[in-house]
């Protein structure tokens, strides 16, 4: 029957159907099953948990209710937290672009021994535990930290930057800027130095050459680096938890507190789901935007 009906469909000039091959499934089947179970089941369980009720006297109530989502979406307390989270994401990303992209370019222009040394110094911190790097900022920004003493000496401020937005931004930029450097570095490796040479020999100033020749070629690196930095900042936990503490909560620290301090698991689960969906939406929208932009520039050219 199947063969007969397929004869009548206008698929005659399509490539012949591939015979089903078991080999790829044997190779990745076990891993795929493990991933499906370990990711799918826990996420579904968390959605179910987020729909449970909660009261401080009785704890978990096994019902179906959107109360936790209502609380998370209506309460101005959580508005402030999500606003802070995404504002930090945008701010940290912009600073990482401004610092990380030029740094990658400068490193690429260094002479051989220094190029390797500076690249290692710029990327190496990525491998050092986030908690260690954040501790470094606690020591620098604390009451008797070097940065605080320096600011006091210059007379800029006599308050330490611990528990401030500025302090969080500084530490988060430090944690994530190597991702921007590596992204732009990877894009720079594909740039043909001859194009720079051509621009200069045709009389372009160095600035025009950077803006009109180098920047367009590394833009994909900047864009993908930005997405990585933004997504990581918006879900960062350790740095905001230590530098901002409970005074300046972000989404991740708020989720942590709902789980481990207040024990309001349904609310924590609802906040986690909202963070997951918001992040996914941003990534999706960003990819669409970038794709459309690229199609447009390609169409013009």
């Amino acid at each position, binding site marked *: 029957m199947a063969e007969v009906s397929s004869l009548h469909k206008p698929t005659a000039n399509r490539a012949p159907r591939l015979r089903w091959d078991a080999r790829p499934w044997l190779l*990745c089947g076990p891993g795929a099953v493990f991933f499906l179970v370990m990711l799918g089941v826990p996420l579904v369980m968390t959605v179910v948990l987020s729909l449970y009720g909660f009261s401080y006297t009785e704890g978990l109530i096994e019902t179906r209710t959107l109360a936790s989502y209502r609380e998370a979406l209506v309460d101005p307390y959580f508005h402030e937290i999500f606003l802070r989270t995404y504002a930090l994401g945008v701010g940290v990303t912009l600073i990482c672009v401004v610092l990380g992209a030029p740094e990658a370019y400068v490193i690429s222009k260094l002479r051989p021994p220094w190029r390797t040394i500076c690249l290692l110094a710029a990327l*190496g911190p990525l491998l050092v535990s986030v908690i260690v790097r954040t501790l470094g900022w606690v020591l620098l920004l604390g009451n008797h930290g070097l940065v605080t003493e320096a600011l006091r000496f210059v007379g800029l401020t006599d308050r330490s930057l611990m528990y401030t937005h500025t302090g969080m931004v500084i530490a988060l930029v430090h944690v994530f800027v190597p991702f921007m450097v590596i992204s732009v570095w990877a894009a720079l490796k594909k740039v043909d130095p001859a194009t720079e040479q051509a621009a200069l020999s045709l009389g372009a100033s160095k600035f025009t050459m950077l803006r009109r020749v180098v920047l367009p070629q590394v833009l994909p690196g900047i864009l993908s680096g930005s997405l990585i930095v933004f997504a990581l900042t918006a879900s960062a936990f350790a740095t905001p938890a230590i530098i901002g503490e409970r005074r300046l909560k972000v989404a991740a620290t708020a989720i942590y507190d709902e789980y481990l301090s207040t024990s309001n698991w349904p609310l924590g689960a609802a906040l*986690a789901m909202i963070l997951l969906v918001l*992040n996914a939406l941003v990534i999706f929208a960003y990819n669409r935007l970038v794709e459309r932009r690229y199609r447009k520039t390609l169409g013009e050219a």
Partner: protein
Amino acid sequence: MYRNLDRNGPLALVFNALFLLFLLAPLVVVILVSLTPEGYLSYPTNGVSLRWFRAILDNPQFIDAFYNSAVLAVLSASLATLIAVPAALAVARYRFKGRDALTTLFLSPLMIPQIVLGVAFLRFFTQLGVSGTFASLVAAHVIVVVPYTLRLVLASVVGLDREAERAAISLGASPWTSFRRVTLPMILPGVTGGWMLALIMSFDELTMTVFVASPGNTTLPVQMYNYIDQSVDPLIASVSAVIILITIAFMLLIDRLFGLDKVLTGKG
């Protein structure tokens, strides 16, 4: 004019110096504070002392956590490699329905915030009645590190010349022998690089692990986070200094073997 093209101007060099100062200052400060002879947070202005490194030995909670983290990292990186190598071979060599979906599935832990993975695993393990066990930590870490290993192994499988394998098969080698004697040696740099990156990612993981670790089965980052939450003293600086030194050694090794930038961009 052309000579200047591949050279940086003075402004660029100053920028480079300031940038690296910004990146390295926190690490240098941690090491300096760890060398203080005083009993409180201070720089070693009155001589250098290793007393806070000796103090680590009197704090078994850090030693135990370090040991846990090391075993966890080796186990999860190895299991991740066992999943990633066959998956990379399947994805790179066969055109089959669901191929893109499988790749997305294996890379998806990169897209999910780690805090979300943490709460999801906590619920899952609690419902299964295995929460806080070492095995559950390993399972959770495997999920988090597979994407890193897979990207590097994929990069090395994709660029592979298959003539040698065809020759091995036509000369009568079994698929397994051809994999072991021909394919594996060729993709070994990518596999080892992926394994080492997974090792570091597992060893450093905090956000997800903070939910699934238990007081009996904790990791070094979790132990350190809980310690810093209470107080910051030279002891935590000396523990951090040890981690910095181990990481530097590891980083130099990775760079020597594969090139750090290639491992980090997933182009092993």
